[in-house]
C-alpha cells in the first residue's frame, strides 16, 4: 500500500488526508455518474421527442395526403352529373364558363365606376351581344350596383368585352349547364333554372333526377339514358320536314323498343333550346308526345280487332260485315267514303272502316273492350320518368254501346302518343305490355310485363298491320326491305270545351312497327293540324303526311338500331291476301 502512495504524488501524507481525498474522489465520481445519467436521460428524452415528432410528422403527412387526394377528387368531379345517350354521347354536361358581371367597386374611389360613359358601354355591349336590350343594360350600368349582365359568355365575346377596357366588367368563371346537342331531345332532358338554393332541373330528366345529379357521391359518374342521339336526330329531322311540308302546327314522334320498353327517341316539335332557359318559359316547353292527349282515331282499330280475336269474337277473318252507315243512340256511324256493301276484318283494317270496327266492338261488348284498354294502360298517365305525363280523358262508368263503338275507332277516348306507342308494342311483341322507360334496361332484368293479348293474336295482328302497309292506307310508309307494318289514323279535333268536331282540323297519326317478321321497334309519328299541300297531293290525312315520314325515317334509323333491310324476307301474309281486294281508304 505504502509503495503505491508515492505514485499518487503525496509520499509523506498522513493516513487521514488520504482517506478524505479518497472520499472526495468517490463523491466526485458519484456526482459525475449522476450528471452523466441525467444528461443521458435528457439525450434519450431528446431522441424520443424527435423520434415521436418524426413519426407524428409522417403520420400527419399520411393523413394529410389522404385528405389532399379527397379534395382533388372533389375538385375533378363536376358540380352536376353528366347526362349521356345510350352510346355515351353527352346530352347535358356541367361546364365551367364565363359570365359577365358588372362590379362598380372594381375601379375603387368615389368616381364613376366606368371609364367611358354608361351609354357608350351599353351600346358597345349590345353590339357584342345583339340579344341584350340597350335600355336594360344602361339601367343596370347606371344603377351602380353589382349585377350579372349575362349568364353565359363565349371566349370570343369575352375578348371583345375585355377590349372595351372597362375594369368594372368582370368575367367570373361559374359552373354552367351546357347541352351540346342544342334543342335535341330538349323535352326529355329538360333545362336548369336558378332559384334560391342554386341551379335545379325543370321538366325532363334534369328535374326527375335532380337529387341524383347533384349527389356528391355519384355526380362523377354520368347518367346514361335509353335515347340514341342519332335516332333522335333523324326523328326530329324527318318530323320537322313533315311539319314544314304540311304546314302543321306541330308534331310528335316516338321510337320505342318493342321488347323492353326503352324509348330510343322521343320528340315534340317545335322544340326549344335548353341552353337558353331564359327563353324557355313558353308553350314550346309543353311536351305534345307524353303530355298532350288526343283522340288518336283509326290507330285504335287494331286494338279493337285484336281484343275481338283474343276473345274469340272474331274467329273467321273471311266473315263479311255490312259497310253501310247505321244509327246508334242518335249518332250515325259512317266511313270517310263509301267502301262498298260489305267488308271482312282485314279489309276493314286496310280501308280503315269505322262501320265494321264498330260492329266488331259491339259484338265484343263494352266491358271487354274497356278491360283491354285498361290492360293497355289507357286509363292512367303514361309510364315514363318525366313529369310531363298527360292524364287520359277516359269515359267514366260502364261504357254504353255508343261509347264502345266510338272508342273502337279511337274517338271518345283521348290519350297521349306515348300511350299509343306502348300499346302497339304490346300488340306486336307477342302480347306483353311493358312500361316505357327512359333508362337502359338490363337484358337480364327485362320487366316481365303484363299479358294483354295471346301470342297467336299478336302474330295475327302483325300480319294484318303488314297488310295495311302493303295494300292499304300505309303504302307510303313501306320502306323497302324493312317490313314495316302499321296503321294510319286521321282524327278530327274536338272543339274547345267538348264542342263539335272541327272538320278542318285533324290529328294525323301513323303507328308502325318494324321489321314485322320479328318486331323490334315501334314508331309513332303524329302531326297536329296538317294542311293539304303540294307535298301531300293536297290531302290532309295520315296516309299522305304521317305515313311518308315513317317511310323516310325507318331506313335512316333501322341500320343504326341493328335492323338491316332485306328484300328477300317478309312476314308471311299469304293466308290473308285472298281475303283482300286492294283499295284505298282512311
Amino acid at each position: 500500500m505504502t509503495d503505491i502512495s508515492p505514485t499518487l504524488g503525496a509520499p509523506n501524507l498522513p493516513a487521514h488526508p488520504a482517506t478524505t481525498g479518497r472520499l472526495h474522489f468517490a463523491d466526485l465520481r458519484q456526482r459525475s455518474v449522476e450528471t452523466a445519467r441525467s444528461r443521458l436521460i435528457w439525450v434519450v428524452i431528446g431522441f424520443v421527442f424527435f423520434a415521436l415528432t418524426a413519426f407524428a410528422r409522417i403520420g400527419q403527412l399520411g393523413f394529410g395526403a389522404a385528405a389532399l387526394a379527397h379534395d382533388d377528387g372533389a375538385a375533378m368531379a363536376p358540380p352536376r352529373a353528366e347526362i349521356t345517350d345510350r352510346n355515351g354521347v353527352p346530352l347535358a354536361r356541367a361546364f365551367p364558363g364565363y359570365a359577365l358581371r358588372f362590379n362598380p367597386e372594381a375601379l375603387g374611389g368615389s368616381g364613376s365606376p366606368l371609364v367611358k360613359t354608361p351609354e357608350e358601354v351599353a351600346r358597345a355591349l349590345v353590339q357584342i351581344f345583339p340579344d341584350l336590350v340597350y335600355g336594360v343594360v344602361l339601367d343596370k350600368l347606371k344603377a351602380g350596383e353589382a349585377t350579372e349582365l349575362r349568364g353565359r359568355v363565349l371566349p370570343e365575346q369575352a375578348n371583345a368585352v375585355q377590349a372595351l377596357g372597362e375594369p368594372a366588367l368582370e368575367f367570373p368563371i361559374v359552373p354552367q349547364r351546357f347541352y351540346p346537342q342544342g334543342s335535341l331531345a330538349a323535352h326529355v332532358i329538360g333545362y336548369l333554372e336558378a332559384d334560391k338554393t342554386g341551379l335545379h332541373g325543370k321538366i325532363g330528366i334534369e328535374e326527375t333526377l335532380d337529387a341524383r345529379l347533384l349527389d356528391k357521391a355519384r355526380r362523377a359518374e354520368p347518367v346514361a339514358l335509353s335515347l340514341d342521339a342519332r335516332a333522335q336526330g333523324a326523328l326530329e329531322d324527318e318530323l320537322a320536314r313533315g311539319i314544314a311540308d304540311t304546314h302543321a302546327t306541330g308534331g310528335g314522334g316516338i321510337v320505342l323498343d318493342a321488347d323492353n320498353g326503352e324509348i330510343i327517341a322521343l320528340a315534340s316539335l317545335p322544340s326549344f333550346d335548353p341552353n337558353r332557359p331564359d327563353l324557355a318559359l313558353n308553350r314550346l316547353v309543353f311536351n305534345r308526345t307524353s303530355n298532350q292527349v288526343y283522340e288518336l282515331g283509326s290507330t285504335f282499330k287494331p286494338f279493337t280487332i285484336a281484343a275481338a280475336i283474343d276473345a274469340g269474337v272474331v274467329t273467321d277473318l273471311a266473315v263479311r260485315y255490312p259497310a253501310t252507315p247505321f244509327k246508334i243512340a242518335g249518332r250515325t256511324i259512317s266511313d270517310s267514303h263509301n267502301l262498298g256493301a260489305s267488308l271482312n276484318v282485314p279489309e276493314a283494317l286496310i280501308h280503315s272502316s269505322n262501320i265494321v270496327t264498330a260492329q266488331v266492338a259491339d259484338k265484343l261488348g263494352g266491358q271487354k273492350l274497356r278491360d283491354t284498354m285498361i290492360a293497355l294502360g289507357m286509363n292512367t298517365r303514361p309510364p315514363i320518368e318525366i313529369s310531363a305525363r298527360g292524364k287520359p280523358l277516359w269515359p267514366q262508368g260502364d261504357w254504353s254501346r255508343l261509347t264502345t263503338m266510338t272508342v273502337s275507332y279511337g274517338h271518345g277516348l283521348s290519350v297521349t302518343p306515348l300511350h299509343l306507342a306502348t300499346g302497339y308494342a304490346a300488340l306486336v311483341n307477342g302480347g306483353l305490355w311493358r312500361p316505357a322507360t327512359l333508362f337502359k334496361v338490363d337484358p337480364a332484368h327485362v320487366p316481365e310485363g303484363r299479358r294483354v293479348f295471346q301470342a297467336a293474336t299478336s302474330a295475327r295482328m302483325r300480319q294484318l298491320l303488314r297488310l295495311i302497309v302493303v295494300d292499304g292506307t300505309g303504302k307510303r310508309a313501306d320502306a323497302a326491305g324493312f317490313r314495316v307494318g302499321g296503321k294510319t289514323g286521321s282524327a278530327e279535333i274536338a272543339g274547345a270545351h267538348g264542342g263539335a268536331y272541327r272538320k278542318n282540323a285533324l290529328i294525323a297519326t301513323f303507328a308502325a312497327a318494324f321489321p314485322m317478321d320479328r318486331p323490334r321497334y315501334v314508331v309513332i309519328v303524329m302531326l297536329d293540324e296538317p294542311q293539304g299541300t303540294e307535298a301531300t297531293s293536297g290531302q290532309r290525312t295520315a296516309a299522305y303526311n304521317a305515313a311518308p315520314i315513317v317511310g323516310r325515317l325507318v331506313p335512316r334509323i333501322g341500320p343504326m338500331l341493328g335492323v338491316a333491310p332485306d328484300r328477300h324476307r317478309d312476314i308471311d301474309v299469304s293466308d290473308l291476301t285472298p281475303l283482300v281486294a286492294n283499295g284505298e281508304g282512311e
Partner: protein
Amino acid sequence: MTKSLHAPRSLGWIAALMIGLALVTVLAFRVNALRSQVHKTDAAIIALQQETLYLETEFEARASQHQLKAWNDVEFGFVAPGAAQYLDSERQLAAFAKPAEPGAPAPVRVASADDDAAAAMAFPAMVSPLTGRPVEPVRASAEPADDAAPPRVGSALADRIGTVRHRANDTELAVKPKRPVHIAVAKTTAEPEPSARGQHSARTLLANTTTHARAERTDAPAKTAHKDRGPAR
C-alpha cells in the same frame, strides 16, 4: 480526468442529435417541396381536364345532330343506304363479280389450302354406276399422253390451282398462298417461289393483276384446267 473522458462522448450525442434534427428538417422540407409539386401537378391535371372538357364540348356542339344535318343538306347530300346496298352473305357479294372479258389476263388465283390438304381433298376415283368398278376418265384415254400437260388426276389439284399461266409468253409459276381467301374481292398477293420459271415476267404480271383477283370460285378448277389444256394440244 472523468470529465475529459465524458465530454467528447456527450458532444458525440449532441452531434448525433443535431444530425438527426437536421435530417428531420431536411426531410420535412423535402416532403413539403414534393407536396407542393403534387399540388401543382394536380392543378395542372385539373386545368388540362377542363381544357379537354372544353374542347370536347366544343367538338360535340359543332358536330351536333342539327349541325350535321345542316352540313348534309348543303354540302354532302348523303342518304340512307337502300335495301339493295345491303348484302347477306359472301355468296351474294360474289354474284356481283364481273365475268372475265375476252383478252383479259388470266386472274391470279390463290389457293387457300396447303398442298397436303388439297391432296387429301382429291376427287374420288370415278366409279361406273353399273359395274361398281373404277373407270378411266374418257379424256385421259382419248388424249395422247403429253409430257407438257400437267397430269389431270385429283392429286394434281393443288398444283393446278396454285399455278398462274401468263398468256403472252406462256410462262407458268407456282404461287404460294399467303393467307386463305374467303371473300373473293379482297386484294390478295402472291409470292412466286424462287424455283419457278419466268420469275421476272411473272412478277410484273403479279403486279398488274393483284387488284384484279376476282371470285369465280365455283368455276375456278374448270377454267384453270381448260386454260392449261389449250397450249398443250
